[in-house]
């Protein structure tokens, strides 16, 4: 939950938070795709859950993610 909004008169703080939120989202996405694959999800299901095309998610993760034993 975002509890505070950065002071609009302080763009450095606000822009830094944006960059860090993007990084957090990227990392959370990568970790969640890995978890989904580990649990037997296919690329179509992951694409639907992320709201992107199967091609997009496959292109981004097929070479990065391998199913791990759970």
């Amino acid at each position, binding site marked *: 939950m975002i509890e*505070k909004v950065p002071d609009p008169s302080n763009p*450095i703080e606000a822009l*830094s*938070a944006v960059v860090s*939120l993007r990084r957090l989202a990227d990392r*959370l996405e*990568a970790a969640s795709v*890995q978890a989904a694959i580990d649990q037997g999800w296919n690329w179509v299901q992951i694409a639907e859950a992320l709201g992107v095309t199967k091609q997009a998610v496959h292109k981004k993760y097929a070479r990065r*993610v*391998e199913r791990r034993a759970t």
Partner: protein
Amino acid sequence: MFNKLRRARADLATMNALFPAAERIARDDGIDQPGAEHLLLAVLDLDDGIAKKAMTIFQVDPAEFRAAIAGQHEEALRTIGVIADDNAIAAALPAGGQPRGLYRAQGSLQTAFQHAVALAKRDKAPLNSGHLLLAITDADHGVVARSLGHLGVDRALLRDHTRSLLATR
């Protein structure tokens, strides 16, 4: 003309070492496209050792710089009340995989790299880690500037020192 060709060949070898390394570092961090901070970590591994030497003066090693990157992200998120368990996310990340070959990067990396190439051209020298460090640390804002600030490194002094190392080569 032969010097130009030699420089171009050396630059190509540097890029072939640098870009896949930056991409691998970003992937290990769970990031799809490397930014200037990942480029800096890759630069510290380049054989000429200029950047590594410059950072050593300020007692900064790659592990500390990585920790500073994470630390400044944590601080930035805290300003908006977001607290994330970075270690738990790191443990759940994919192994990383092989670089894609077709190179893609964040704008911060592209800008820094173009600047470094211009610095090398001005010096009429092959691109080296000193040019890259100068270019990467040029921006007043962004992850690299904040991470160095987090470590208490005076960016202006670091850049002066890097220029001295370049001049004495």
